């Protein structure tokens, strides 16, 4: 069945097409652009178009596909770069040149790569849903292929993967393929969620030590422009202890993506020593790419992330930035002439955000593996004002909050994480793990560091009035130590070797600083001169 376009407004078109479903995928216009039904009326529907509507004419066809907006899941995703609709950017470039034309489908990623399937089940074996029938070596990853139905295997074959040919046939005649399509807006199922306690080491001292993250948890870091969101996000993508990293560039800068792709192809994962790209999937929709595809990009990414979670891996999803996604939502909502909520955002903003965060978690998968999906999302509050709706909606659902501070950024203190305002709800559970696996003193040292920083803040107020000279000797020593904590511990240069710090290094550094302080305090108490102590430590 097909219909035609009768109206166009911004990224949405009005189509006359009977029998469409809500969220059904529609191809729009002669260029066959992709779209999704967002509102249904009798015989008339509004379709949000994932491409620029410039040049589209009324009267052009609109055809429902009978399916929802899906992504294709299977071996071969790793190391790829997609746009927000899972079109592989490399093949788009090969087909169209440097600039992206509207309506291009882009060939599917696996066409280019030769992957070999090795069966682990044989004819006659009975299988359950979620059970592995074999695997594919995807680079260094063993990628199990899981059954999506149950039955008894009739035929199964080793060999080159082919998107069209089935891997196995069941007795009842059903076929099993290496790839399947999954609707992006539907969370993938799992057996149950686990209560999280394992830490996710990020390699960032400030985060790992003061505000540790848990696998399956979620974190946001809001910050005004120039506070280093993107650099922090990319540092974590490079160094975090995670099997798979899915990175979404959502409505951000093209040159930064070029920089990141450049970096990633030359760096190695510090944990496995393998090339960084071999564990990474990138989905990117830069700010000048179509707005509706930006809205879809985080769902495309989270669905791919869930897929690897279901294979039993720990997956880290990084998105930069959630605010751009929310703005895309606002643009679409306003084209639909919906009643606006706060600052023009639709009233369902908070529930959409909560729904998205709910897709994070450590889970027991359908076949009993353990996998986790951790989310770290940056937020770009307008004017650096954290009272805005996106930050506030995130704060209600997220497990940790790293506040990026413009003041610190202006002093070139990076990562500019404010140590008073930030928090992590995983702190207690995860600390136990650090105490057991790294060193007993982890929690104690952290407590001490916090106290030092707290006291420094109050001393600073005094200094504002009387100057440093007016402080007591012990306080001046403390000010010196906290400066060292800030400069040598909390600050971390993303462009040098120091960009990654293992938990042992992190601990070693802070232990040294605090030990030097303890020694100096002792000598001060025994009558040593402060000026000499300060000189020694400088």
């Amino acid at each position, binding site marked *: 069945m097909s219909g035609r376009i*009768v*109206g*166009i*407004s*911004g990224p949405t078109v*009005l189509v006359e097409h009977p029998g469409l479903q809500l969220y059904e995928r529609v191809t729009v216009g002669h260029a066959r652009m992709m779209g999704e039904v967002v509102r249904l009326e009798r015989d008339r529907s509004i379709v949000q178009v994932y491409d*620029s*509507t*410039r*040049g*589209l*004419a*009324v*009267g052009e066809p609109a055809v429902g596909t009978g399916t929802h907006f899906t992504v294709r899941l299977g071996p071969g995703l790793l190391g790829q*770069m997609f746009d927000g609709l899972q079109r592989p*950017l490399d093949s*788009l*470039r090969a087909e*169209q040149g*440097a*600039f*992206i034309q*509207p309506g291009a489908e882009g060939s599917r990623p696996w066409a280019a790569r030769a992957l070999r399937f090795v069966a682990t089940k044989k004819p006659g074996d009975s299988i359950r849903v979620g059970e592995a029938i074999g695997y594919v070596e995807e680079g260094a990853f063993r990628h199990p292929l899981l059954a999506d139905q149950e039955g008894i295997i009739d035929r199964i074959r080793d060999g080159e993967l082919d998107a069209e040919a089935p891997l196995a046939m069941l007795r009842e005649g059903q076929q099993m393929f290496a790839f399947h399509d999954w609707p992006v807006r539907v969370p993938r199922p799992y057996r149950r969620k686990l209560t999280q306690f394992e830490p996710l080491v990020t390699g960032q001292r400030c985060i790992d030590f003061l505000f540790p993250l848990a696998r399956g948890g979620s974190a946001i870091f809001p910050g*005004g*422009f*120039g506070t280093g969101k993107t650099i922090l996000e990319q540092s974590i993508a490079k160094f975090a202890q995670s099997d798979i990293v899915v990175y979404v560039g959502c*409505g951000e*800068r*093209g*040159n930064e*993506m*070029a*920089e990141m792709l*450049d970096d990633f192809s030359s760096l190695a994962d510090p944990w496995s020593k393998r090339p960084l790209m071999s564990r990474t999937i990138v989905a990117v929709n*830069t*700010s*000048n790419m*179509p*707005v509706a595809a930006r809205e879809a990009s985080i769902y495309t990414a989270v669905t791919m992330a869930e897929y690897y979670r279901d294979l039993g891996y720990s997956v880290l999803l990084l998105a930069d930035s959630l605010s751009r996604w929310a*703005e*895309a939502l*606002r*643009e679409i909502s*306003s084209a639909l002439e919906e009643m606006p909520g706060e*600052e*023009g955002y639709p009233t369902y903003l908070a529930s959409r955000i909560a729904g998205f965060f709910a897709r994070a978690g450590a889970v027991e998968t359908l076949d009993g593996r353990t996998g986790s999906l951790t989310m770290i999302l940056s937020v770009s509050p*307008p*004017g650096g004002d954290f009272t805005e709706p996106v930050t506030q909606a995130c704060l209600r659902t997220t497990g940790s909050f790293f506040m990026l501070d413009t003041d610190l950024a*202006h*002093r*070139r203190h990076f990562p500019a994480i404010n140590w008073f305002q930030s928090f992590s709800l995983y702190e207690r559970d995860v600390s136990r793990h650090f105490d057991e696996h790294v060193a007993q003193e982890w929690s104690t040292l952290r407590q001490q560091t916090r106290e030092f920083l707290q006291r420094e803040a109050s001393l600073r107020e005094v*200094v*504002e*009035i*009387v*100057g*440093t*000279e*007016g402080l007591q000797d012990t306080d001046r020593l403390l000010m010196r130590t906290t400066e060292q904590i800030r400069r040598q511990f909390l600050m971390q240069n993303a*462009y040098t070797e120091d960009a990654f710090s293992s938990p042992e290094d992190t601990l070693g550094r802070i232990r040294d600083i605090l030990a030097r302080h303890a020694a100096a305090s002792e000598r001060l108490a025994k009558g040593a001169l402060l000026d000499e102590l300060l000189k020694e430590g400088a």
Partner: protein
Amino acid sequence: MRLSTHSYSTIRSIQGPLLFLDRVIEARMSEVVRITFPDGHEAEGEVLKIEDDLVLIQIVGESRGLDTDHTQVVLTDAIKRAPLSLAVLNRAFDGSFRPIDGRRMFIPDTWAPVSGFPLNPVARLRPQDLIETGLSTIDGLNTLVKGQKLPIFSCAGLPSREIAAAILEHARAGRSAAEGAAGGSVVVFVALGLTYHEHAFYQQALERMRGDSVAFINLASDPVVERLLAPRFGLTVAEHLAFEHGRDVLVLVTDMTNYCDALREVSAAREELPGRRGYPGYMYSELASLYERAGRIKDTPGSVTLLPIVTMPEDDITHPIPDLTGYITEGQIVLSRELHQRGIFPPVDVLPSLSRLMQRGIGAGHTREDHRAIANALYTHYASGRDLRRLEAIVGRDGMSEADKKMLDFADAFEREIVHQGTVHRDIGETLNVSRKLLERFGLTTP
């Protein structure tokens, strides 16, 4: 494609720059329309929205004199395109690409849609080649590279145009200039809502400049809607010169605040839901569609570098215009009223200024291997000196330690000797030399 020309006189209403056309048989989003006024003169317009047979058109130009009975509207079936040719060089046009230099329109080699197409992120070449501006605060501390977009955040009354003119006159692309860019660099100058006085100033600067330029001039008295079009023409021409002819193009757009105000005016006329301060909610995407056209392409010579000037209303950097700009661009150069009042030129406040693409553009092989260390040292010490000024205001200089006094002196000297350079042009080597000397004079090691 339509087989015949569709001409209508079924105007339902006209509101400011917007025209509602009724009973339209077939319309295309963003297509160009030609409007013939009752007195016979013509204007152009663009389709903004279509709902069944009702079409919303934005008029480019003056809408005074339109009526609902005699006005004719022709739908052209084509979207807005820019004429392209090397013959644009050293010409001046208005916001609708009509020549204003007294010479005839050139014959284009080709046409391209003014809105452009997004550059595939994997086709982008990472920008890392220095553009030397001759200003120490930029070259030394906030280095500009080819393919970057770096706005200048100014305040009313600050010499942003003098700085822009200085950059235009001196900008030269660094060492790799020899290998690419056969015909040298080109400046595309886009003036949006400038006063005649400002325009004359830039005109002189362009004349003093060696090398080629193209100007698109929309003055304060010219139609508001043309302000939305002029930068798109400028960027389309820039992309053509860069990626078809291998030139390094520097696009200077001034003033983006006028662009955003034009956007707000049209949005309000469309009765759209206003966002912060009345600007439309899609302003981020709108600005991105301009700014993101800066860049370089792999295996292709040429580059588009963008220098927009933004005048911050009420000197407020959190105002939506500088705020959204800062979220899209790769850094910002922030001017300070305080430095200006102390007679420092250029009055660049280096603390909130930033160049995100600096890291790859400096150091051995690009500028000098000690560049990064010098820049970091200047920042750190200047920042602590600036902090101490607040303390000095409370306790007085006498109450401060020797070390603190030294930092105060350093901050003063930094502003007088590095930031301030008057009309003197420093190449990157000189910038690094004077910076190094200053640090050594204060006994501050370069870490």
